[in-house]
């Protein structure tokens, strides 16, 4: 039982980490960024390349090297996010939302198959592997990397929440989400704020990509697809656009999957998870923490 919970929470925190970026981007331009999972994939591949180039450095211990590489990868994916927004999404501002969504699918294809052309379709094995000796707490096997990854996810979440809810820039982000023209009239440089949001969201995804690569050890050009869908699901369950919600949604999804496999077997896992979700949303149509928007007439 406690193992089940722990497994669920751990997998869930990965979902959450990606869902955070998802939710941020959604929060500001109401875009379901289907390419977000691919940014995660880019983070993994980029760090793979950097590590290949710095193999000499590996001597100084894998954790510091990994942190360094992660920072570089975050910068890279951050700028990739900004770049993608600039060329693919910005021209579509003010167009129907679904147009942007489809563009995101196009971006997703492009990123996936560009990486496939460069690295080939086979998975690559990541040069650094995090594996700690497990300790048993309350009957659950827990490793140090797991704990570290979860703490990182939690810290990022609190940081982001503060940033969005309590700073001027965060307020501007939320304002843009509601009314871009009115934000302009308040003196908000809409482009800049949106770029910054993409930077943060994509950097987070990149970080998650590096962590996943180091933890699981193999990366491939389609690795972002499924996790992107999961993150989207998590963001929605949590109440899309809400940072705590994204986190909570990720954890809930992780738990659902863990228990689903346990109760019904791996083949019915997703049926269980989605079935539960559908049921849940029919009773709480705006997700766990999503605010009920009362639109006045």
């Amino acid at each position, binding site marked *: 039982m406690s193992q089940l919970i722990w497994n669920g929470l751990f997998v869930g925190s990965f979902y959450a980490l990606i869902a955070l970026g998802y939710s941020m981007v959604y929060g500001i331009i109401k875009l379901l960024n289907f390419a977000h999972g691919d940014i995660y994939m880019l983070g993994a591949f980029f760090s793979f390349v950097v590590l290949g180039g710095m193999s000499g450095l590996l001597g100084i211990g894998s954790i510091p090297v990994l942190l360094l590489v992660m920072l570089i990868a975050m910068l890279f994916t951050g700028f990739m996010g900004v770049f993608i927004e600039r060329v*693919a999404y910005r021209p579509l501002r003010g167009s129907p939302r679904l*147009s942007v969504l489809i563009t995101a699918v196009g971006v997703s294809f492009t990123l996936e198959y560009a990486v*496939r052309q460069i690295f080939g379709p086979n998975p690559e094995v990541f040069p650094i592997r995090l594996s700690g000796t497990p300790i048993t707490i309350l009957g659950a096997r827990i490793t140090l990397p797991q704990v570290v990854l979860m703490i990182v996810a939690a810290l990022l979440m609190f940081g982001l929440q503060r940033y969005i809810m309590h700073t001027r820039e965060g307020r501007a982000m939320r304002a843009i989400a509601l009314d871009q023209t009115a934000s302009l009239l308040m003196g908000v440089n809409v482009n800049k704020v949106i770029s910054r949001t993409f930077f943060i969201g994509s950097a987070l995804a990149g970080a998650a990509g590096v962590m996943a690569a180091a933890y699981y050890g193999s990366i491939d050009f389609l690795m972002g697809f499924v996790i992107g869908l999961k993150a989207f699901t998590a963001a929605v369950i949590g109440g899309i656009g809400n940072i705590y919600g994204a986190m909570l949604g990720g954890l809930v999804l992780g738990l659902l999957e863990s228990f689903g496999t346990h109760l019904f077997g791996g083949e019915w896992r997703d049926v269980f998870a989605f079935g539960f979700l559908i049921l849940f949303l029919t009773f709480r149509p705006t997700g766990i923490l999503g605010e009920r928007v009362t639109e006045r007439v």
Partner: protein
Amino acid sequence: MTTDSTRLHAPAPFIDRAPQPSGILAPNTFMKTLGAVCFVTALVLPFISATPYLISILTSAFIYIVLAMGLNVVVGYAGLLDLGYIAFMAVGAYTSGILTTRFGFSMLETIPFVVVACIIAGVIIGGPTLRLRTDYLAIVTLGFGEIVRITANNLTVTGGPTGIHGIPTWSFFGWSFADGVTIGGLYFNSKILFYYFVLVVGVGGAVVAAARLGKGKMGRAWKSIRDDEDVSEAMGINGYRTKLMAYVIGAIWGGFAGTLMGAHLTAISPNSFLFLYSALVLMAVVLGGMASTPGVIIGALFVSLAPEFLREFSEWRFLLFGLLLVVTMVFRPKGIWPENAVLPFLKKRQVPAHEPVGATGPVAEPEEAS
């Protein structure tokens, strides 16, 4: 409802209006003519070139048009984001697949079952969830799509992951496409007959019917919900019922496309109903132009044919497809042929510049409501 109070009745219009343009360059006539020309071209095409490859990809493309027209009702007209639309295709394909291969039905006989199954599926998913708004609806439909696929993957009636194979082609009252037919010395094989069948019944029927649905009372109701659900209620439109209607009609179109696809491929498996395909159909609708019939047709042709035409580029083709998609959307944000597109060379109505006169007209004589 009591009827003893007066209802307001419409006054007759009293302002002269500029006449609608006429002739071949009038927008309506032009579009109808264009549609007819395209249709006839497709009809005679096999007489010009009938390579199995061309026939096969065109048949798939036509089936995609049926699918996209169905999704267009849901997404384009009613504005409901459906990320699991392919599930309805699965329901149709499996229903007729199972009935033909296991119970010896002919394709034609499965149609009523397909329709019923799709209505049930549409109501099951739509019933409890249609009060959700956009992205919550999106996730629920996505989940529904996955549930259908995984269930098909795990059950034995559906053939598990292998799916169903050996699905027969269409037959009518004892005569089957598989027999082929010779007309005026020309032999038409089963694939070509199926091509015509899909073209005439599938594309012809589905496109015309769905396009008409977009114009009448239902179409206005859907679009009003898409624009502003609250106000739509204030027009006397029951939002829930209207949305469910869109869903069910979309489901029927999807199921019909599934039946056609089953007969075309002769084999179906859960792998043909991955989320990716829901995304592709959605892409067809959005890329072409939501709620625009010519747009959706173009979009469906694009999505189904582009990967084929890009085959020459072999491994690069999905990269190119992705780039092409982005570029198209960036330059045509509302789709290739948007809903309210006006072709520049068509005649426009000559509307005289008006001075706001502002005098209000006479109201009709009040009548007692009957």
